């Protein structure tokens, strides 16, 4: 049985960590400016704790992203097939993107 091609959970984890790091930095700056305005001491906000994801969460996230890509290709392929074309082009993708982005 052919193994299904999917995203590497470690790669997904690296992307998430990058996004979390960015968000934490922004949150830290916002808290600092809020504390300076309210003249309170060092921030002890619980929101500054790092975010983690376990193995199952990463696998699920990889599967969600794989579904997104697969769904985009399948929907565009349906449009291309209806037009009698054998190659998926930009025009086919343009027509399915609005609903796809709203669905996901």
């Amino acid at each position, binding site marked *: 049985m052919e193994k299904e*091609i*999917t*995203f*590497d959970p470690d*790669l*997904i984890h*690296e*992307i*998430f960590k*990058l*996004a*979390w790091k*960015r*968000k934490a*930095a*922004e949150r830290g*700056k916002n808290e600092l400016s809020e504390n300076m305005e309210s003249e309170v001491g060092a921030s002890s906000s*619980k*929101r500054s704790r790092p*975010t983690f994801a376990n193995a199952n969460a990463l696998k699920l*996230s990889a599967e969600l*992203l*794989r579904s*997104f*890509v*697969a*769904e*985009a*290709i*399948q*929907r*565009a*392929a*349906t449009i*291309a*097939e209806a037009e009698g074309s*054998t*190659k*998926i*082009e*930009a025009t086919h*993708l*343009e027509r399915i*993107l*609005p*609903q*796809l*982005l*709203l*669905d*996901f």
Partner: protein
Amino acid sequence: MTQRRFDRPLSRASFAIGTELANATMLNNSPTMEDLDGGMASEVEREEEESVTHLLRDRFRLCTISIAEAEAKQCGMEVSQPIITCISDLAFKFAAHRNDHLTTLLRSFCNDLKAREPNLERKRKKNSRKEGRVAQGLLRTPDT
């Protein structure tokens, strides 16, 4: 799932929103950099993060190419490279931003649970103390 979603008519408003998103992604070759870049403390850190983002996006794109080509093959179709690039960029943004939304929801849910936790903890301790007293009572059986 695919056929059902296609049959449903799209309202004007939803089509307009979706088209705007799609056009913004199709025209902009590197949207992900701007989305993830939010103001860095130093130029060096900014450049480092940009290079990390580039690397991750390229690795992500390679995976997307494999998945997209496999799906297209199943449908008996070919898919052009710009299409795969566009889908890859969209999925990359989805991974970064959707995750952010989910993290925010989960975090607020966690904080709500912890806010209720002191009451639950008190009840649990009360119950365990009661159980302890009952157990002690049972152990102290009088000598007959």
